[in-house]
């Protein structure tokens, strides 16, 4: 089983939010966060920021797009 440092788990948490981690790394982040005294709060805060920005994005997406680009 892969053991992650706090710094590694915190960086990978961002990729986890985007669904970009493979199952092994996802498990490793999950295991680290479960057993760590400091990372769970950071992960919850990252998640809150992620959800807020996603909500704002959906509000913006009401506007029509031009040229098929996501700009």
């Amino acid at each position, binding site marked *: 089983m892969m053991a992650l*440092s706090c710094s590694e788990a915190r960086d990978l948490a*961002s990729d986890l939010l985007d669904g970009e981690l493979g199952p092994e790394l996802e498990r490793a982040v999950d295991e680290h966060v479960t057993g760590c005294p400091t990372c769970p*709060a950071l992960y919850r805060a990252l998640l809150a*920021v992620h959800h807020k920005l996603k909500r704002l994005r959906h509000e913006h997406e009401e506007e029509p797009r031009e040229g098929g680009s996501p700009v």
Partner: protein
Amino acid sequence: MLTEDELTACIESRRGRLTRMAASMLADAAEAEDVVQESALRALRGRKGFRSEADVCSWFQRICINTCREVARKRSSEQNRLEAARREELWRDPGYSVDPEAVAVALESGERLRDALASLTPDQRLAVLMHDLQGWKSREIAENSGLPLPTVKSHLRRGRQALVTLLAEPAR
């Protein structure tokens, strides 16, 4: 060869959204219009160097994104860079944590979120705004800015982490 009419049509089709992207990046609507106008002039001046196998609108978009980064970098102070380094150091400290409730409360304030976004480094702000607020994929940001994909992903991670730190700190 790319004609002036083709390029102008592309500029006009993208002007609105690129101006909004620049306004989010620079927090200044007038400067955002100047950035898009300057990018249009750069594109028109450089159209003879345009490679016909590339997409003309993506090419213009790339010019615009990089002009925006350039302006944002010029405005970014040494103090901003030191603050960004301090925040990165915090996230490397295993003892560092935050109160997620305080972050959730701060997120309810549009002003706190705007201030936090404005405090990111220009490249972190670009990555977070384009990826999280405008729905670009990291790969698309890399292709349109000329930055390597791992660099874009790193700016995105650091930008999100910095937002957490900024929102967890008491309002100034």
